[in-house]
């Protein structure tokens, strides 16, 4: 725990970062010995920011996100959420939305959203109330009694988002949440996510392969290199908010997307 002590001394910034990654490296045991997956990654995500991580396939961005969620342990370095190191999953601090809608097929939408609260044995009424609130937030009023297979792909991801937010964590981690959706649904969902984000004021760390999605959603885009993953560029997206579909046709949008693409090409 030595590095943790060092960290708290060095963290003297005015606004506390919602997520702070400090010197994280990761090595895993592959078939041909040790494989370095992540190399000395440091980044901070300010509270309320929307940060998108892009990078070539297999660069370790999902691993990094899993570490931020406390689902995987890095070999070196520390990750702090809300000022404290995250060593195990803590849904009070971090909500996670996965790529495939990882909803429990035997539970209704509402029961799925309640699941994290049920784990902590929250009172039934409180659970219902919170879950219904979240269901409305993601725009699924009236769909609470549906089972996941009765919902479309986009609706399933809405439920996943609601589930990630139900314990009101300050940080929401999203691992390619819209990758399995068709283009149109994906655009709508991006727009919806921005609405939910601005309504709730959460800090979002979002992984995607889509450059358009990255520019459209982000305050800043972090570009990772191929394995071992490092952060090779940080691009501030200066487009005004609220973002609109029309912005996608502008020169600024195109230039930003182009810059990310150049970086990824270099990185791969």
């Amino acid at each position, binding site marked *: 725990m030595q590095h943790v002590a060092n960290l708290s001394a060095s963290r003297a910034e005015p606004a506390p970062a919602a997520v702070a990654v400090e010197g994280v490296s990761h090595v895993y045991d592959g078939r041909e010995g040790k494989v370095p997956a992540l190399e000395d990654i440091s980044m901070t995500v300010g509270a309320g920011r929307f940060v998108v991580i892009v990078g070539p396939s297999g660069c370790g961005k999902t691993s990094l996100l899993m570490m931020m*969620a406390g689902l995987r342990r890095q070999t070196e370095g520390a990750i702090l959420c809300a000022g404290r190191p995250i060593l195990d999953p803590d849904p009070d601090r971090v909500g996670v939305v996965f790529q495939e809608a*990882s909803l429990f097929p035997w539970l209704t939408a509402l029961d799925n959203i309640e699941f994290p609260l049920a784990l902590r044995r929250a009172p039934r009424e409180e659970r219902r109330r919170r879950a219904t609130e979240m269901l409305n937030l993601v725009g699924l009023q009236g769909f609470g009694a549906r089972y996941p297979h009765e919902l479309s792909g986009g609706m399933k991801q809405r439920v996943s988002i609601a589930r990630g937010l139900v314990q009101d964590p300050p940080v929401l981690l999203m691992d390619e949440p819209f990758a399995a959706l068709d283009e149109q649904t994906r655009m709508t969902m991006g727009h919806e996510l921005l609405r939910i984000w601005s309504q709730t004021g959460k800090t979002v760390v979002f992984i995607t392969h889509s450059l358009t999605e990255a520019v459209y959603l982000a305050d800043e885009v972090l570009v990772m290199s191929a394995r071992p993953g490092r952060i090779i560029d940080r691009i501030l997206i200066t487009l005004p908010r609220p973002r609109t579909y029309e912005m996608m046709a502008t020169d600024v949008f195109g230039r930003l997307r182009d810059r990310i693409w150049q970086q990824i090409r270099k990185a791969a």
Partner: protein
Amino acid sequence: MTRPAPATVRWLILLALLVFWELMPRTGLIPELFLPSMTSTLRVLVADWREYAEALMVTLYEVGFAMLIACGFGILAGALVGGLALLRNLLLPVFSSLYAVPIVILYPIFTAWFGIGSESKILFAGVYGFFPVMLSTAAGIRTIDSQLLLAARSMGATLPQQIVRVIIPASIPTVLTGLRLGGALTIIGVVVSEMLTSAAGIGYLVTRYRTILDSAHVFGAILMILLMSILFDLAARAIERRTLTWQTAGRREKETREARPATPVAAPAA
């Protein structure tokens, strides 16, 4: 002409079979020794109902206990083998190949150990039904979507919570299929073992009346076994349907939606 519904056709086939069963022996095309007519079979069933009822009670008692053994140990062993990699690697290949062995060859050993009473039937049929239950339970646990467990962990689920709230509900469909299969096998196991060596039960009636060439009584016993198996299967399916509403709820809805006549495409815009 509209095509009749599949259910109607099924009933018609059944009816045709019954008519065939009645007519063939009556017209003398098939001797009554080979195929007693339906009415003569039903007649002996009614006349000797007490004998059949007693035999049925014995068989049901044996089937009940055999199912308890098959399901109880099957689920327990399946959960252990499916959940623990070490046990799985050690035991699963053994169990899988044992499943292919005709276990009925072991029945003489069971009678040697446990006598020709109900005990040997219960144990033999229990072992017989154990394998599908155990194998499908193991498969059900092994094939759980790891994303679901990851999601549960991200929400702070402890290991016991993961087992109770994710692993068990996720493996219920495959376990139920195994129970239906295993239950059917225990019925077979009990009846077969009764036919081989015993002094009571429906299977025993089949063997006894066959040796004295009383075909009507043999068919009466066969009919009862048939009914027992069908009733078990219907009950098992009903339980599956009730438990797995989350799998079927939407499908039913989808079917009704698709069954609705399509709205005319070129509807007048007025």
